[in-house]
């Protein structure tokens, strides 16, 4: 009985995992990825969009703020791309008092824009 329950739980979580992978853009071609990184950089640096430089030092950006930590070594620190996406989508999930705007939840950026920014940030 116990094992059965466990088996179901495992199956459900595997399904959930597959589901969430399904939602994230998978196996894009190299060319698409390059363009999403470029687009992501543009949206991230745009003052009227991400304005990430307002709070974070980012390679290639001038006069960054320092409310948030420098964005470096992101792939090493966020092996799971979804975690990085989630931080940008709604930083208050991890830290309810976060000074980082919940870009996705507050619709400051579209899901696509957040996905592009995630690709860009992941290259840092």
């Amino acid at each position, binding site marked *: 009985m116990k094992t059965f329950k466990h088996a179901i739980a495992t199956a459900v979580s595997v399904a959930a995992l597959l589901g969430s992978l399904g939602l994230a853009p998978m196996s894009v071609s190299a060319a698409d990825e390059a363009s999403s990184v470029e687009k992501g950089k543009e949206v991230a640096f745009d003052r009227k969009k991400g304005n990430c*430089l307002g709070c974070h030092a980012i390679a290639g950006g001038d*006069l960054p*703020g320092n409310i948030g*930590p420098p964005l470096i070594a992101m792939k090493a620190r966020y092996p799971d791309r979804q975690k990085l996406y989630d931080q940008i989508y709604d930083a*208050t999930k991890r830290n309810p*008092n976060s*000074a980082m705007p919940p870009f996705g939840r*507050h619709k*400051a950026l579209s899901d696509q824009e957040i996905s592009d920014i995630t690709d860009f940030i992941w290259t840092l």
Partner: protein
Amino acid sequence: MKTMRILTAAAVVGALLSAPVMAGNVDPAADLKAVRDYFAKKFPETPFNDYINGVYSIDPASRAQWEAIEEFPPYEPNIDKGDELFHTAFANGKSLADCFPGYENGVRQNYPFFDKATKQVITLELAINQCREANGEKPLGYKKGAIADISAYLAFKSRGKKFDVKVEGADALAWYKRGRDHFLAKRGQLNLACADCHVYNAGNYVRADLLSPALGHVTHFPVYRSKWGELGTLHRRYGGCNKQVRAKPFKAQSEEYRALEFFHTYLSNGLEVNGPGARK
């Protein structure tokens, strides 16, 4: 390192301002102590009395340049204009001077105050317009122009006098709490509270702008801002900071902003009036 940051932020929020609200009661004296202690720890180099200088109290790098500006202050013509307006007779022969007895020795530090009779917080700018209206004159616009000039003149006459806002009785406390709530609430599309920028991140940079401490914020208003190219009132600045986080600003002299000014000025109790000021 990451966890440390989060812990520090949460601990500060709890200790500084949020805890009493959760408990359902607000204690102004405890807030005042918490805010002073917090900044004393955060900026050990800054003497208490120096917070009246806003961002320059924590930024030696830009201070020299600012002090040079203050030697030939851009707001000087505004003080003269305010002087003139203050003494110009209304149609009925009276003037603003009749409404502000003792102005020569300084009245700025007495505002804002809670008026028990009307159960309203009265700011200096509101009192100026109430005087005009009581004498059959039209009210002035609240963000800039004549009202800022008059406010600058009265602030100048009050330099050196100390703020001592009193929060007495349940009604006054309700106004205080409303201002406090505004100050602490995350707002706008960017989800930022006044406290996020001017308490927890004071001394940090948003892009190239160093964030000033909330302590001492109000003492030097109205302010001549290079960005505006003119003088503006405290409520004009409130509107600007609300807009920055993509929130809809409230009207100057709305109850919301008067409550905010009441709370915000209480935090500067014990500091001197040094308005008008010059800022970037």
